[in-house]
């Protein structure tokens, strides 16, 4: 496999036991790959399973059938069937996921949240501190906020902390779920710049970006999700 990330005939549906076992089809027959140094954008109207694909790649959602292959150094891991410990190892070394929502332990400062992600991603303590400061600075997070827990921040501020956290460690696969949804133009440009830096450094990037300008700025190849089938209700 030369791709950094590859979906092979992936299908997913939700079985809603609380609604009498109703099956909600999400996606079927998803086949695509992202190469190192490539940026790809999942495209399609809402409800077509873009977010689910991204979450499946990260192991946050289960995959019913098919394989989701991630290159992890010399080996390839199928996230669809990997044991929890393997997925955790993959997240620590290989994959970053930047969501729209920040979920952190209360009471931990913004700087610490970002630094901790750097250390978990293999940076030394010093590197993590330097890079965290650098990222928060570039993302225009006012320095007076760095020592405060992000729970008290505005949506845009929280999102920037989240981006810094997702980008601090140089992981080869980057999954982005609307990373700029609540940012202003200036900060979007910074994010686009950061993403481009990571791409140029060889990361494979798969994202959901609704904003056309942002999509253009990161120069992503479009993957049309509507061309995949939808899983049939059982």
């Amino acid at each position, binding site marked *: 496999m030369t791709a950094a990330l590859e979906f092979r005939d992936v299908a997913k549906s939700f079985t809603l*036991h609380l609604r009498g076992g109703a099956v909600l089809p999400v996606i079927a027959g998803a086949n695509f790959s992202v190469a190192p140094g490539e940026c790809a954008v999942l495209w399609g109207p809402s409800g077509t399973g873009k977010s689910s694909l991204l979450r499946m790649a990260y192991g*946050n959602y289960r995959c019913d059938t098919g394989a989701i292959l991630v290159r992890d150094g010399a080996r390839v891991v199928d996230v669809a069937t990997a044991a929890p410990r393997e997925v955790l190892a993959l997240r620590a070394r290989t994959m970053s996921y930047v969501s729209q929502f920040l979920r952190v332990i209360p009471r931990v400062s913004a700087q610490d949240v970002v630094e901790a992600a750097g250390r978990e991603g293999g940076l030394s303590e010093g590197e993590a501190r330097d890079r965290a400061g650098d990222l928060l600075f570039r993302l225009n997070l006012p320095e007076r906020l760095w020592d405060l827990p992000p729970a008290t921040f505005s949506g845009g501020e929280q999102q920037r902390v989240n981006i810094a956290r997702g980008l601090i460690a140089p992981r080869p696969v980057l999954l982005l779920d609307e990373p700029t949804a609540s940012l202003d133009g200036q900060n979007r440009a910074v994010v686009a710049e950061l993403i481009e830096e990571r791409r140029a450094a060889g990361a494979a990037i798969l994202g959901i970006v609704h904003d056309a300008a942002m999509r253009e700025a990161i120069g992503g190849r479009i993957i049309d999700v509507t061309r995949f089938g939808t899983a049939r209700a059982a």
Partner: protein
Amino acid sequence: MTPLLSAHGLTKTYGPRIACAGVDLDITEGEVLAIVGESGSGKSTLLSMLAGELAPDAGEIRYRDREGRVRALGAIGPAELRSLARTDWGFVRQDAAQGLRMAVSAGGNVGERLMGLGERHYGNIRACALDWLDRVEIAADRIDDPPTRFSGGMRQRLQIARNLVTAPRLVLMDEPTSGLDVSVQARLLDLIRRLSGELGLAVVIVTHDLAVARLLSHRIAVMRAGRVVETGLTDQVLDDPADAYTQLLVSSVLAA
């Protein structure tokens, strides 16, 4: 790698009532495993069996000791079992009065395990107790106060210090945050997460609070009526629950 602790087919019944049925789990260093479920689902019974305090009716627990030998808990004599429980393991209880000596000062509570290991230098014990009180954010000038004068959150932090002072490898926690104010809970969760990460502990935490499980644990096991109905990555089980009961549990949580 061999897990630090693994359980196979753990079963415990009280007359006709099934407390635990065929539970399998394993945990290794640096991992936090959450066991969630309603009260009466068998979580605490399971924890007592893992701690060696309750003998299972069927099934086996294996523990990898410091020499790397994998031992069946049931085959370890009571003397060694108690010694393991005082040194290699920790048990943070829901009710601090059960996990602490309420008539003994904070320093004495932290120092007890050291004295149990044969430490006979008062100055060293005192210094170690001060260091641990600091690590769990209890002011040094409270070292001679008994836990009866501590708040609920402080008592739990003292329990943690008392347990971690011998550098255990496995820490079991039974609802450590329940009954605490939300802000106090957050502080405790942060502390548990930080220490378990720094010290590379294996932690099994029993909780009925899914938010606690999400914040602290890597993996989760959902229990119902004595059985594990679903297990896996914590965020996967909570965000994409497959089992009917887990879906009910997840959907029953009040969003903050």
